[in-house]
Each structure stands twice: as structure tokens, then as C-alpha cells.
């Protein structure tokens, strides 16, 4: 019993006998833990924590009712006794079934699918697998007017559809834990946050996935552009979804970043939007006014407000300081002013700004 006085939370949790005591299982060490509480009153709180963790963890388990258990047992026995389809093949079979269902759906709906007539080849076959499997009707919205059109989606998300843009989605919007929209043309999405049911936009071979955010998708015959205003989205060529081993093509975009997808090459690249917006207001008092400040301060202020990473060699630019007064200029104008003052240069690479400088004296 000597070492119990040095027991910490981990030790209690890892002690088999303690765990059995907590869940009320009989144990050879009957009375031991009550004794320890008496001997080492300072251990009481830690023991209480350990007990809480174990009991809560057990309570958090998924519940299977007797009826559910029985149903599942019968289902398994039915399969094995009847000697039906081997399970390894069952999954594949199901895939075939859904493919068949999709083919029927496409045939049945005919022209209701915008992409059927407008788009040839690229990604269509892949997209079929992502069309909701049940033959629920698809809603289609086409903007035939000359101005942007507001569309409300069933989940509360808002879409601003540019002229000549089309979107379609299942009437039964949340399906298989996904919210899915098919887009042709240009649309700005303001997506309601719902982490349990991610939101997908399929546009000419590119899949954009979001939780809750606002962003613009612009799909033309040759390119798809995705521009992020707020939140996070990831983009991935539709073709690569079919090939799960190759995950490197998925790109995460943060605000003011932009992905450009080339339909021909099936490649996504990352950049910065032409006109980055301020994500947060600069400090009310100081704003972008810097009075002989080290350049690191200026860059970090810019990073913070626009959310765009700025990469530079801190050692080389250590002696660079700046007196500059900036206000409402666009992001890239600000960068021009700063780099020109310093005699430095910048380029945009992979969604970041890279500063090159020979240092200051």
C-alpha cells in the first residue's frame, strides 16, 4: 500500500483494480480503495476525477437496445444460414446497385440536369456517384435575368447566383450527411454552419467542401475559381475522389485565398484573390500608421487583418524599419508602398506573399 500516496490521476485510471471498483465489479482487493481514501484524504479529489472519467466514458457509449441487438443477430444469422452472397462482395454489389440507380435517374430526368447537355465528358461519370441515390426530384434554379439572383437553400444557406448561372440540388437537401449543390456559372455562397453535414459544391470537375463559410465559385468551360471570403473550404478535383490513395491534391483555402482549377489539366493551384478584403478591422487607434516600426510589426499587422501569410527572411530584414501611413488602399497597393519604401520586392506563391529583400542599413 506504500505507493498509493504517490498515485496521480493516470495511476488510478490505469489501475485495473481501481477501475473494477468504480464500475462496481467484485474484486480481490475488497475494501482497499475505501481504506486509501481514509489513509490519504488528499487523494480524494484525484480519485473522484478518475471515477468521473471512467463512469462518464462508459455512459457515453452508444446504446444498443435489446430489440436492436436481436434484430442484428437475426440479420447476421439469416445471412450465414441462407448461405447468401459473401460479404466481401456485398459492398461491391451495393456500389453496382447505386450506379444502376443513378443511370435510371439520369435517364428518367432527361434534360433536367443542366450538365447533361452543357458539359461533355469531364467528370460526368464521377459526378454520377455523388448524385443523391434515391430518385428524389432535383430543384434547379437558372438565372435568366441580367442581375444577380438570390436563392435560399433549404438549410438556410444563401446563394447569390450570377446571370446565366445555374444551380441544382436535391429537394431532400441533407442526404447521407451531405449537403450537395451542383453549379454551372458563377455563384457566391453564404453557407449555414452545420459541421455534421458538410456542404459540397460540384462545378465542372472540382469539388469544394465547406462547413460554414462564405465563398465564390466561378465555373467556366476551362476553369473553376473558388474565392474564400470567410471560414475555411477545401477543394479537390472530382477525379481524385475516385482515387482515395492520392490525397495530395486536396487544398485547404483560408480567407482571401483562391483556388484555380484547370479543367483540361485537372490541376488545382492556390493563389490570393485579386482584391483581398480586410477580415478584421485594423486596431482602431493605430490603424496602419507605423512610425519607425520594425518591418516585422508591419507584416504581422497585415497578416492579421487580411489573413494572408507573409513570408520573409527575418534575419536579413532585421534592421529594416518603416515609417508609413496606410489606410484604405487595396492589399496589393499597400504591399507595393511598403516594398518600394524598403527597396524590396514581393511575389505571390501558393497563397502566400513572399518578400525578397537584401536587407537594410
Amino acid at each position, binding site marked *: 500500500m506504500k505507493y498509493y500516496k504517490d498515485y496521480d*490521476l*493516470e495511476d488510478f*485510471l*490505469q489501475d*485495473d483494480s481501481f*477501475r473494477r471498483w468504480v464500475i462496481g465489479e467484485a474484486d480481490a482487493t475488497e475494501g482497499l480503495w475505501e481504506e486509501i481514501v481514509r489513509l490519504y484524504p488528499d487523494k480524494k*479529489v484525484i480519485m*473522484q*476525477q478518475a471515477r*468521473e*472519467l*471512467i463512469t*462518464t*466514458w*462508459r*455512459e*457515453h*457509449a*452508444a*446504446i*444498443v437496445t435489446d430489440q436492436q*441487438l436481436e434484430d*442484428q*443477430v437475426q*440479420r*447476421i*444469422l439469416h*445471412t*450465414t*444460414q441462407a448461405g447468401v452472397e*459473401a*460479404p*466481401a462482395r*456485398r*459492398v461491391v454489389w451495393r456500389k453496382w446497385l447505386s450506379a444502376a440507380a443513378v443511370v435510371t435517374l439520369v435517364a428518367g430526368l432527361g434534360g433536367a440536369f443542366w450538365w447533361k447537355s452543357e458539359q461533355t465528358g469531364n467528370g460526368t461519370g464521377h459526378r454520377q456517384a455523388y448524385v443523391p441515390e434515391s430518385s428524389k426530384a432535383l430543384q434547379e434554379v437558372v438565372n435568366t435575368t441580367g442581375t444577380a439572383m438570390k436563392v435560399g437553400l433549404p438549410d438556410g444557406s444563401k446563394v447569390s447566383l450570377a446571370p446565366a448561372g445555374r444551380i441544382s440540388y436535391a429537394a431532400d437537401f441533407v442526404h447521407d*450527411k451531405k449537403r450537395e449543390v451542383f453549379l454551372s456559372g458563377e455563384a457566391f455562397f453564404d453557407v449555414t*454552419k452545420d*459541421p*455534421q453535414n*458538410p456542404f459540397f459544391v460540384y462545378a465542372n470537375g472540382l469539388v469544394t*467542401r465547406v*462547413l460554414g463559410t462564405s465563398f465564390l465559385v466561378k465555373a467556366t468551360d476551362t476553369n473553376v475559381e473558388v474565392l474564400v471570403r470567410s471560414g*475555411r473550404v*477545401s477543394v*479537390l478535383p472530382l477525379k*481524385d*475522389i*475516385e*482515387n*482515395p490513395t492520392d*490525397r495530395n491534391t*486536396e487544398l*485547404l483555402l483560408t480567407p482571401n485565398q483562391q483556388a484555380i482549377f484547370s479543367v483540361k489539366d485537372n490541376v488545382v493551384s492556390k493563389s490570393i484573390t485579386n482584391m483581398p478584403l480586410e477580415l478584421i478591422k485594423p486596431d482602431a487607434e493605430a490603424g496602419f500608421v507605423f512610425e519607425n516600426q520594425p518591418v516585422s510589426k508591419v507584416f504581422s499587422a497585415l497578416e492579421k487583418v487580411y489573413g494572408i501569410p507573409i513570408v520573409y527572411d527575418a534575419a536579413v530584414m532585421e534592421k529594416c524599419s518603416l515609417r508609413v501611413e496606410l489606410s484604405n488602399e487595396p492589399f496589393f497597393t499597400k504591399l507595393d508602398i511598403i516594398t518600394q519604401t524598403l527597396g524590396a520586392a514581393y511575389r505571390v506563391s501558393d497563397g502566400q506573399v513572399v518578400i525578397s529583400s537584401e536587407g537594410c542599413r
Partner: protein
Amino acid sequence: MEQDLERWKRFKDGDAAVFEDMIRGEFRALFEYGSRFVHDRDTLNDCIHDLFASLWDRRHFLVDTDKIRPYLLKSLRNRLLKEIERTNPLTPFEAWHENLDAEEGIENRLISTETDERRKRQIGTVLHSLTPRQREIIHLKFFENLSHEQIAGVLDISRPAVANLLSQALRLFRDKWQTILPSLLMILIG
């Protein structure tokens, strides 16, 4: 564990009654374990169904085991990972360090009693902030009462790696716990 070996052999000989007992006896443990990383009940039921059906089909070719539970947990785990891979080739947002709302998830939906709901929600929040792998190892250790060796077998990692992962998960848990401790103590003591 002698009993396990005996049961396993009878199942391999095609004893349907033993097989049925095995399904009945192991189903809940498998479901509970699986629910730690697959939240969709239908998918989970399908995977467990496939697991048992395939065991039955291949029973003549199976190796002997004297630890049925860990054996089944490991088989289910492999199946579930394949299933997740197949249906969701996208990187989970959590992996991009997106902070999911801790209110979400199966943990919270299953909390029913109102009396100590607050306490449970706080602990649930802490549990939720663990990575799936950390949750998994805590489950195997404190729910299934598996030994380090058995966990090593299920996860296909070395025993030191199990010890390491477990202590990591626990340290994280304790640190997170500390931040909610003040309010918690009031409930426990009060």
C-alpha cells in the same frame, strides 16, 4: 482464456449455436467500440454484419485465438477503416485543425439525464477535444479493460507505443480537465 479457445474451435467446426452465442455476446462491445469512430449506426451495423458473415464463411481458414474479444475488435477496426476510406476520401476537417463545435456529436446526444447534465457536458467537451486515436485507446483501456499487449494487438502497434499513446492521451485529458476543474469541483463537493 482456455474457454475462448474452446469456443473458437467449436465455432470453426461449424457449431451454429456457439456462433450465435458469440454474436450475441460480442455485438454490443463491437458496436460500442465502433461508435467511437463511426457515428452512422447503419454503417456500423453493416460492418459488424459483414464481419460475422465473413468469419462464418472463412471459418475453416481462420487461425486459432484464445482472445476472441480483442480478435474481433481488431477485425472490426480494419473493416471500419476501409469503409471510412472508401466512403470519405476527403481529409477530415479536424485534420486541418478546424475546431468543430464541441456541442456536436454522439456523446452529447446520448446524455439524457438532466441532473448532472452540466458536468457531463463539460467532461464531454474534454473528451471531444481528444483525437479519434486517443479516444480509441482510452476506450480500449478503460471500457474494454484490455491489457497493453491486447491493445497493441488490436491497433497493430508496439507495446511501448501503446504506453506512450495512452499516457499522452491521459496527460492531455488531465490538462484539459484542469481548466474546467474549478466549476467541476463545486458540483462534486457541493
